[in-house]
């Protein structure tokens, strides 16, 4: 993961920590934050590639209206990362193009 894209964390009020996995790397997120925030903090960019042309995209609006933050969250493809809160043990990967369905068989 290119650490040079990581968003910086300011001094925060007390929050429980949550361990999640982003693209195979274990990272610490704060309880109550969104997956998109955790991903930006981790420095991952792009966070998806489009189904149309395969170009890279990353979260744009953070409030659920642009659908640029679609990622694979706990095996669920095309999930809005900015509308999903982190939880312990969550596994997050880049959404590559169109989503898979029906598991690995396809």
């Amino acid at each position, binding site marked *: 993961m290119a650490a040079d894209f990581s968003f910086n964390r300011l001094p*925060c009020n007390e929050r429980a920590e949550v361990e999640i996995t982003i693209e195979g790397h274990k990272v610490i997120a704060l309880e109550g934050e969104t997956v998109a925030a955790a991903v930006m903090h981790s420095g991952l960019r792009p966070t998806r590639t489009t189904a149309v042309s395969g170009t890279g995209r990353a979260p744009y609006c953070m409030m*659920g209206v642009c659908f640029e933050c679609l990622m694979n969250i706990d095996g669920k493809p095309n999930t809005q990362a900015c509308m999903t809160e982190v939880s312990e043990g969550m596994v997050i990967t880049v959404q590559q193009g169109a989503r898979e369905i029906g598991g690995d068989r396809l």
Partner: protein
Amino acid sequence: MTGLQQYDLVILGAGPAGMASAKEASEAGLNTLILDEQPRAGGQIYRNIGRPILQNRSILGEDYYVGESLLAGLAQASLTHISNATVWEVTGDNTLCFSAEGMSRQVGFKKLLLATGAQERPVPFPGWTLPGVMTCGAAQILLKSSGLTPVEPLVIAGSGPLLLLIACQLIRAGVRVEGIVETTPTANYGRALKEIGGAIKGWRHLLKGMRMLNEIRRSGVKFYKCATELRAEPGSDGNLASVSFRKGSTLHQLECQTLLVHQGVIPNTQLGRAIGLEHQWDEVQQCWKPTLLENGCSSHPDIFIAGDSAGIGGAIVAEIQGRTVTNEIVQQLGLKGKKDSEIDSLRKELADQLAIRPFLDYLYRPLDMFLRPQGETIVCRCEEVSATEIRGLVKQGCVGPNQTKAFCRSGMGPCQGRQCGSTVTALLADELGSNPSDVGYYNIRFPIKPVTLGELASLSQPAQDGTVK
């Protein structure tokens, strides 16, 4: 429909408008449900106000923490509050569907209040889809809910009071800003001055604006005024690498890893559109808004709208409207509302708060390149359709956005036109030599937020209390 849980009032959105409404409704004794898709109440301005994350309260400023009292009002109200609940359908027979925790539920209402707020205006320009370009509001959301600041070097580009506020908040947070590229067109200043009367009435807002400008000046951050030809450029990895723009006769280029953009906010009309409520084009604010009676009632007699989703007025206006419109609902349901004198004074306060709007609207009217992009600039981010392609469809006989949608898929992706709708209308108006009002808007269809087929299928099995899994 029988068997569904019924409410006197369902409020959609727990921002200032929704929270204020909730308090009024519960005080009047209405059986009320408030739904919001966020995990915590607050809306956009007071996002995460229940558990402020930043140790340093001066970063966001006191205007943010004002929201604590509204939240307290909501907490004390006796009503049902469901968070993480996305409303995806409202039907004409006074029922709605929402999805929460992977499960959809249907409830019935006598009256519905849409307090779904605003979204930032889509800002198409070359390179706006690059990873690393995001909205100012997005950066603020990261700040308010995660205490995060964007990766540097950082440039902020655009126009509007919210841009100045967010720039100040980031500067206070210690972020190094390479430059603020202000795109407010020169001509706007002259036009806005004609509205100075209202601005003077709203002097408090004006003063806030000047303070922010001063704060930016004092910080030493470079401020490029009246910039044009904004363009974001990728590096070899496909991510944002720099931003270029013209100021006067000079072309500037700044290297950056984050570019925050903003051109004001527009009402979130998605749900109202899908319901089929009447909307109208607001030429001054350059956006669509629902057609409302003075009492906040939409073209459906049981659906009311308050706050920024009724037309941009800001947080205080949203809060007051939340109260006045709810009072109207209370009375229509045959209960005793507020005293006339109380309502009159609220109305007066509303008028005072709105006095500055024309000045702001004329001053911050976006540069033409953002409203009517040209060339290869992507208009529909989801389906990757360019301005040239949309413009070209007029020659193929398209006279409206529903025809262009059918021809090139613009507006058919997951965002359902939220990021391209206003631009497509503007482009068609441009090519046809008509105006947005005549061109019209996309027919928006349910669900207004994606819901899985499995979740939808589960609604076909009748269940007790309207809960289906």
